[in-house]
């Protein structure tokens, strides 16, 4: 049997409140298993303990009770982090380093060096679309760009597990779609992804399994399809149907035992609208970037 990518057992974390007797319970009796190769989404409202859980898994915060493992190795051991890439929420890196220098620094921390590291940096900068900004200091990066460099940094040593804390926070729809595609691509390559989010629509698109946290307690867990399917309902989406045809279908339904719950015009999503409207400007945005680089 292979070890799970992440195992959390009986995890409880209390944060003491200064000058108070009782403490904040961030996570309570949490049990979690992420199998190798799956995309697991940890969902929950603000303050439900998602970030705390991820930090404990990475050994950045020590648990009050319980234990966590990565590929069978205790999170408290430094070597458990050997095959993990982590993107913290709202990542913030050294402002005085350029994008390229940042990746080199993190690569060296992972024991990389020389030509392989150089190639890897080029690869990742292309991957996250920051080739033009590679020589700029991170102090001048926008929030979305920081998120991208954070993602590149997490992937620098080609880890087997990637932990992402709200990977799309502060990223525009086009960017977050790219991040989604990237995560799907990681899954295709057999890399395990553990991510946290409160953007449910997005989690729905990419997660194999989700766990829902509320006040530090895991209230739901399971395969996404099973969790969200409404067993006794079916949706039809029809294009170019004439009104008589629709009336006919409706009367067919009424004659049977089934019940028509809703009849409406399909709408596009705001996201799709946004993407369509801004797609043309995408090139303009790029050449804008270019102009800035050329001015320097």
């Amino acid at each position, binding site marked *: 049997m292979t070890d799970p990518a992440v195992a959390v057992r009986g995890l409880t974390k209390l944060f003491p409140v200064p000058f108070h007797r009782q403490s904040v319970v961030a996570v309570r009796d949490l049990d979690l298993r992420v199998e190798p190769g799956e995309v697991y989404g940890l969902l929950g409202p603000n303050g439900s303990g998602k970030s705390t859980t991820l930090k404990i898994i990475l050994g950045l915060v020590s648990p009050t009770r319980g234990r966590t493992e990565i590929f069978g190795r205790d999170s408290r051991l430094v070597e458990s982090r050997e095959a993990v890439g982590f993107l913290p929420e709202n990542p913030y890196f050294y402002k005085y380093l350029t994008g390229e220098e940042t990746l080199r620094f993190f690569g060296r921390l992972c024991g990389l060096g020389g030509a392989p590291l150089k190639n890897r940096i080029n690869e990742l900068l292309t991957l996250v679309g920051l080739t033009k900004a590679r020589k700029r200091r991170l102090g001048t990066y926008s929030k979305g760009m920081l998120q991208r460099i954070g993602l590149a940094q997490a992937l620098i040593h*080609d880890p087997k597990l990637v932990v992402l804390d709200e990977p799309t926070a502060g990223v525009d729809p086009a960017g977050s779609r790219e991040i989604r595609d990237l995560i799907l691509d990681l899954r295709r390559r057999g890399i395990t992804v553990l991510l946290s989010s409160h953007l449910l629509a997005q989690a729905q698109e990419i997660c194999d399994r989700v766990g829902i946290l509320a006040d530090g307690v895991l209230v739901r867990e399971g395969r996404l399809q099973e969790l969200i399917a409404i067993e006794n309902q079916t949706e039809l989406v029809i294009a170019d149907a004439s009104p008589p045809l629709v009336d006919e279908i409706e009367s067919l339904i009424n004659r049977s035992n089934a019940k028509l719950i809703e009849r409406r015009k399909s709408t596009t999503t705001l996201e799709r609208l946004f993407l369509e409207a801004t797609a043309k400007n995408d090139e303009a945005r790029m050449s804008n970037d270019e102009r800035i680089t050329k001015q320097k």
Partner: protein
Amino acid sequence: MTNDRNDLTLQRFPGRRSPGEGGNASTLAKPYRAFSVGRIGAITVNTLTELTRLKVFYFLLVFALLLIGSSMFMAQLTFQQEFQILKDVSLGAMSIFTSLLAIVATARLIPQDIEDRTIYTILAKPVPRLEYLLGKIAGVLLLLAIGTLVMGAVFFLVLYAREQTLVHVTMRQMAAAPREQIDEALRAVRASAFNSDILPGIVIIYLKACLLAALTLFVSTFATTNIFTIVVMAFIYFIGHLQAIAREYWLQEHSSGWISRVFLAVVALIFPDLQAFNLVDDIVAGTAISLGLFFKTAVLGVFYTTIYTLLAAFVFYGKEL
């Protein structure tokens, strides 16, 4: 470019890998080693880059200007006096500037990383906390070494320039005098300009700065703000200089039983005897620093630096980030 961005399904990556396949190591990185000079080196270089890009080196510019300025208006003194003052001012300034640099540069190093959460990304890599700390302190010690070297070089240049001027003046004034008298006078000028104790003196100044950096690192691991660290360090700095006097007074008043010995040892650990590192007066007076005294002081400096770094590591290990 647009295509490039949207087409994130990269062919660039090597072929797919089945989940959970072979060991825990990633394909690219070498297997994890418990202690890695490479990782420490990466953090050291990064720290040095941070400090230099923060432009702390302007400190050194101030120092150089101060030196050159002070040697301008000493023309009316005898050359012995002039060299004495020059050395006194320069070595004193070097001592203060390196100490200041050590405290200011170190105080914000770790709290800043914690506040900005950059520390999360670093410690989420396979980097032991001890290595992180060692890399940081090594960066500061390297900065201090560069600083001391630059200041030392400016000092020697000024000293050399004054010496050359004096040699020329002496030769002109004594043009008529016999050969031996001229040689005699020049020897006197050279002797009062350079003495062999300057170099060990500078080494001791550097070690004092190292000690202060390590102590600052220790204080900053449990301090809540940078201001706290700097105030505490200013306090320790002054107490540290007065400590020796206080100790003598204490020993006069109390018997030297083991309780007071332990007490004094604890005090000496919290407030290192900084006066012991003050060899400037001896150098200026021209009294030779014995080899024994030099080594004793040097060992003391290295010892304190090590102890404080280990104490910092100890506190840092249990720290909730």
